[in-house]
């Protein structure tokens, strides 16, 4: 090694640092959106970003927060890696951002919760608050719960409770097959389904409990053959992404005639991949779907949806999906206004126990474990007919229709959370 090399190294590092330096503005409240914006899950992350961008714009159009401050969403690409997420978290904190929004990947969320907990302990004067809109591992509001974490999506337990209630009311369902991805999330779906089925409908037989490697299966036909052999009439699955669409596609191919009760059957890209194969068969647990405003006659929300479709959805290719994004942003804005400051500690205290009116009823951020309690719906794939199934998803001609509404109180589950709260 000689000095010339070192010189060039120094030069390069200097350049790096200068490029990384960034200015801060003060008339905005910045919110970091940390989700995958490149790689295999980029579409999902990108879609989420649009949701939050749209909602921020709406709030800003109404005057923003704290009497005129604007909300600004800054996107950070975590490539759905826990490690990258922590880097981007540091990056965000360095830019003076203290509000984090993230959703995809329970592993990412777990990493963020513990990293933020550590950061806030080490830097009590510069805390960070974390709004989770999609990571639904029950642990986050139970043994791993944190004061700084707020979840706006229903947890696995809550969604499975909705599904099992439905099974209880549907006497046709006699044999249930559980098929899930082989990791923490899939296992929690399976275990809570087994526990709740045993409790609520002991007569229903669980004929299979299979785990598939996450994102690795290309052809689900072997699993379908196995499901057929088991004689199941219903499948419960927490599969998402390609694992969801491929499962239903393979089922259709083999003429498998079962009901699918899913957590992510409406996920981005699923309607396109599944399409007709899902009609009247594929049920999913959601807090919102594209025909809800029509069914419940909420023209304001329909307009909200249509505006998004027009401006943000690439002509309907990426439709509005995260109904909870609106709740998240509105509650955040309320909390900032209520606290009278954008200090995360104050925001967190304001959010605790906060109630909020959505077009579909009152929701509450339970202070015990920071889980949002909201009404849930079971929706099924249906052909768009211009009537109550007015809109179709992802330009497929296929939409959703509600088959059951579950009130918020009914979805609430007990929690074991013992949270440490900072001084107010």
């Amino acid at each position, binding site marked *: *090694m000689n000095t010339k090399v070192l010189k060039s190294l120094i030069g390069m590092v200097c350049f790096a640092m200068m490029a990384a330096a960034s200015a801060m503005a003060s008339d905005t409240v910045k919110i970091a959106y940390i989700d995958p*914006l490149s790689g295999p899950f980029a579409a999902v992350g990108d879609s989420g970003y649009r949701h939050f961008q749209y909602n921020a714009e709406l709030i800003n159009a109404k005057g923003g927060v704290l009497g005129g401050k604007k909300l600004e969403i800054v996107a950070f690409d975590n490539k759905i890696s826990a490690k990258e997420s922590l880097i981007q978290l540091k990056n965000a904190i360095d830019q003076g951002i203290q509000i984090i929004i993230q959703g995809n990947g329970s*592993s990412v969320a777990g*990493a963020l919760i513990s990293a933020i907990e550590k950061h806030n302990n080490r830097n009590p004067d510069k805390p960070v608050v974390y709004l989770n809109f999609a990571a639904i591992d029950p642990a986050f509001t139970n043994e791993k719960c944190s004061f700084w974490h707020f979840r706006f999506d229903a947890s696995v337990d809550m969604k499975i409770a909705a599904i099992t209630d439905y099974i209880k009311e549907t006497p046709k369902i006699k044999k249930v097959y559980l098929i899930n991805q082989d990791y923490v999330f899939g296992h929690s779906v399976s275990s809570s389904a087994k526990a709740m089925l045993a409790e609520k409908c002991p007569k229903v037989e669980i004929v299979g409990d299979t785990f598939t490697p996450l994102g*690795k299966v290309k052809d689900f036909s072997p699993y379908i053959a196995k499901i057929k052999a088991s004689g199941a009439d219903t499948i419960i699955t927490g599969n998402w992404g390609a694992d969801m669409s491929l499962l239903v596609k393979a089922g259709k191919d083999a003429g498998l005639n079962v009901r699918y009760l899913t957590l992510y059957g409406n996920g981005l890209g699923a309607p396109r991949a599944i399409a007709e194969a899902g009609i009247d068969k594929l049920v999913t647990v959601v807090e919102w779907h594209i025909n809800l405003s029509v069914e419940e006659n909420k023209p304001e929300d329909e307009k909200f949806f249509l505006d998004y479709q027009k401006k943000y959805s690439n002509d309907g290719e990426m439709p509005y999906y995260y109904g909870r994004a609106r709740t998240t942003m509105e509650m955040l804005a309320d909390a900032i206004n209520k606290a009278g400051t954008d200090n995360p500690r104050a925001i967190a205290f304001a959010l605790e126990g906060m109630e909020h009116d959505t077009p579909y009823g009152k929701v509450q951020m339970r202070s015990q474990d920071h889980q949002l309690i909201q009404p849930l719906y079971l929706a099924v794939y249906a052909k768009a007919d211009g009537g109550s199934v007015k809109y179709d998803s992802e330009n497929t001609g296929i939409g959703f229709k509600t088959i059951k509404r579950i009130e918020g109180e009914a979805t609430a589950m007990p929690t074991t959370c013992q949270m440490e709260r900072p001084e107010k």
Partner: protein
Amino acid sequence: MKYLIRHLGIWAVAIALCAILPVIFSSDYAISLLSQMGIAIIFSLSYNMILGQGGMLSFGHAVYFGIGGFLAMHGINLIAGGTLPIPLELAPLIGGLGGLIVGILFGWLSTERSGTTFALISLGIGELIAASALLLPGFFGGEEGVSTDRMVENTITPFDFGQQIEVYYLIACWMLLCIVLMYLQTKTPLGRVANAVRDNPERAAFIGYNTRMVRTIQFALASFFSGIAGGLFAINYEIITAEMIGAIPSANVLMMTYIGGIGHFFGPIIGAVLVTFMQLTLSGFTHAWQLYFGLLFVSMILWAPTGLAGIIMNHEPAWKAGLMKKLIPSYTRATLAALVMFLGIMTLIEINYHLSLSIHPKDPMSLFGISFKAQSPAGWIIAIALIAVGFFFFKRGKNEVKNSWMDVHQAIKTGGK
């Protein structure tokens, strides 16, 4: 030791640099970036021990990094629990030893042949371990990974490692130590024989060496350093997930090392610094960063297979002879032309990204502060024109560079005699 003293100057500069950099660039982000660069430097230098020096192309080097990281992580948890009586500062050593042991095992299994067979075995082992990681949640922690709190009681320094800067200095110390050790390793009998085995395994067997043994030891030592890097990773992020064992970090370290240049010891250092920087910052500027990165990688393979270090070292004779000024005019012209061409390509890529992936494809996009509509043909025409013009002048520039090099060679020859 004598060697160290003789070359003390450069090491002193390196130490001073490591000490001063975080003072100059003191933002959290910069320090975090520097820490990551430190880890990447150890990792890619260790990779070059097998690729550059041993001639073994591995597609699974992250296995040793990852296993080292997991072991160190469990180690830190034990340290925190008080069951393991070693200070936190030495935790990377746990990773290193873990890497070493796994490296000896897999090294012996995979190094009987080099070349494609070795490459495929390393790929297979990488996929195998990565796929098993999710089956063994006890060790690998499943999708969630294993995490820790590095603020433990047992430290030998006065630091409690609550702040990133303290972690940075720990990484810097380990990095300097590892660089020195890896550099000295190239000067040892094993290091020299590894080169011999790379160049000519047949002959190496006839100077008494078991080529498989040479490769195995070289491989295991590389795994050791890789494990140390993994251990530092564990301390830096306080989390490690199974993805760190997989194909992506393995491909990443390969690209880093190759872009830096595998033919020179310092090549991987340049590669690690540059690529880490690009990965962390480019993704903030453009969604197309992976495409740019891929283009850079492929262009390096096509036109500069010796890597950045090779390019730099090619100029050594000209530099020594004081003839760099002869090269500068043609270089400037060729670089300008290349820049124009790249500008065109970039415009084209960004327009396309705007059309296919941005939120409002119909809104005007802005590039270099100029705002225009992506649909309008003007952008396309300008981009294609830039590419064409750039390409034309680049070809000419390339010839000029060639000619000026010939001049320089001529001058060196005549000057030398």
